[in-house]
């Protein structure tokens, strides 16, 4: 028997970073929580009739509307006078958040509903077969940005800056996290639900199937994304950057190497340079390198 509010026995792939992160999130929130879940991997592998992995009230409606459904849940709880003590969570994958669900999410932010929105960022439409999303990183080989004789690079767009887009709405709390840092995920979730208003947490969740790495490398690949500077772990409170996880930056190749989706770039120094520049820019922009003047996580 599991004490978790997210039961084992669901049908996620071995090594799925999203299932790990989803369990961390709901267990940090506790039983007094209602979840609205967009369509996607998490929804499909956790709620196939007649079974459900969820130990809290949970609703799935459509691909792009969890933020609006959660807004309705929150409004109904307010009407009933029951909002105090109940956490409302909206959650989705990266496509459901940054692409098709962005409008509903923006509406939820702007209206200031007391909801925590969690984006599980596995950097592609993994559920439908690894198609590119707005959060697919530069250079990734996906089924809709394939490598061919004419197109050698995979995805040529950069990740949509979702944390900054969320922050620009003036919401009180925005954070990024990684399934590879479980305590950090739970600390941020607990912090978010302690704040009234709309909150956004984007969790990097490695996908062995889509990223084409061994299923026992989920944690190490996730860690490397953070440690190279490619996935900075940051927190904004009331619009200001208040904490970052500082790193001794590792070269980006260490992150790219274990993943089949970047295999085509490994012998292409020009492309490695571009990806290293993304990491360097993050390191500079957020002050990720240890012993910089930006406040460390410990001081937050």
């Amino acid at each position, binding site marked *: 028997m599991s004490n978790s509010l997210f039961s084992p026995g669901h049908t996620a792939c071995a090594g799925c970073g999203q299932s790990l992160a989803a369990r961390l999130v709901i267990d940090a929130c506790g039983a007094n*929580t209602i979840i609205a879940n967009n369509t996607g991997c998490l929804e499909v592998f956790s709620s196939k009739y007649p079974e459900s992995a969820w130990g809290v009230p*949970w609703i799935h*409606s459509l691909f792009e509307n969890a933020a609006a459904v959660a807004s309705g849940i*929150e*409004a*109904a709880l307010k009407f009933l006078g029951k909002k105090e003590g109940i956490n409302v969570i909206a959650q989705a994958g990266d496509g459901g958040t940054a692409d098709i669900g962005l409008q509903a999410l923006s509406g939820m932010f702007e209206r200031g509903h007391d909801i925590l929105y969690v984006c599980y960022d596995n950097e592609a439409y993994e559920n439908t077969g690894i198609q590119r999303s707005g959060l697919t990183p530069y250079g990734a080989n996906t089924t809709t940005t394939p490598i061919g004789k004419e197109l050698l690079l995979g995805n040529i767009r950069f990740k949509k800056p979702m944390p900054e887009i969320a922050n620009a709405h003036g919401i009180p709390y925005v954070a990024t996290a990684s399934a590879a840092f479980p305590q950090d995920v739970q600390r941020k979730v607990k912090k978010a639900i302690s704040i009234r208003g709309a909150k956004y947490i984007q969790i990097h969740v490695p996908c062995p199937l889509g990223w084409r790495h061994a299923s026992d490398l989920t944690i190490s690949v996730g860690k490397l994304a953070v440690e190279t500077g490619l996935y900075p772990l940051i927190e904004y409170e009331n619009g200001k950057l208040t904490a970052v996880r500082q790193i001794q930056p590792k070269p980006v190749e260490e992150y790219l190497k274990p993943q089949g989706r970047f295999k085509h770039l490994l012998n292409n120094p020009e492309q490695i340079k571009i990806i290293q520049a993304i990491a360097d820019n993050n390191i500079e922009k957020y002050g990720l390198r240890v012993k910089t003047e930006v406040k460390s996580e410990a001081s937050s």
Partner: protein
Amino acid sequence: MKEFLEGSRAVAEAIKLCKPGVISAYPITPQTHIVEELALMVAEGKLNSQFINVESEHSAASLVLGAVATGVRVFTATSSQGLLYMAEVLFNIAGMRFPVVMTCANRAISAPLNIWNDQQDSVSMRDTGWVQLFAEDIQEAVDFHFMAYRIAEDKSIMLPVMVCMDGFILTHGIETVDMPSQEQVDKFLPAYSALYKLDPQNPITMGLVADPDYYTEARYALHQTNREVLDLIPKVTKEFSGIFGRVYNGLIEEYQTKDAQRVIVAMGSVCGTIKEVVDELRKKGKKVGLLKITAYRPFPIRQIYEALKNVPKVAVLDRALSLGSYAPLFSEVKAVFGTKKKKPQVISSFIAGLGGRDITKDSIKEIFRLLTAKELSGEFIDLKPELLKETYEQ
């Protein structure tokens, strides 16, 4: 109490009496007056409700879905493009068996852009699983909303209901309306208590995946329940009559059909015009009548059969098209008779009143004139052939 009210304002007053806890909408002409009025009621403290302005109709429908799932009575309203934008959510609301009530201010669909009345919007949503009730006048629009909540929230039904009222003609028209008292409405419509809801005290999972082993049965059950609404509506209208005094059939209305030789089948506000023409022609000794369809979904097949089986000539008037095929209402009325022994000799199809073109008494007389032994398939009334002759440089 009888009041002289604009249709939208009257509907807003009716909704207030139904006490929805959450209202969400996105503005679209000609629905706006309804939600503006409700927003004002909330602002003035006359209505205790969460009024949520959203960024789209898709989110308006999704928001009320989330609220009703949490156990609260909800309301939304839209029209035309807004209804189409909601389409995906409409299917979902019905599939999840949520008793949402919505007003559709019927309006044409783009292109070309047109803000005026026809019924293409809700007719195009006929397969969503929503009950659709078409109002003839403002009083019906008001009364149908009370019934809509009763039908939707019936524990044996749990389906969404759309009250369709012709845009501008009814939403912006002004008529004398008998507004019931709060006591009457409370007696007819008890507070909403959900069968299932999102509640941490009793966690359930809603909106699951159903694979091929289960999907068919879920949809079959939805279909069966939809058919059962045909049995529920007469019970609801009977109870309604007992409290409010107004008598409705709720499925169809037969107007001078008993001995009629020629009958027009129609939906919505045009039925008022047809009744006037029927009265005039009856005075001249012509045996004509009207069959008003109130419930477009579920479609009252048996009642339509009984009403028309002995009528020799039937005209079906559509204010919508199914491009490239038979007009929508016509094809369904036609299908009612199929291989039945008793049936009209002629069922002709007429299309009129698209994009706000008035259907006048002369238009109706023209339909009766054209309703002869020769069956017509999709005859446009009041078409302007001169506009079709314009030529363009290739």
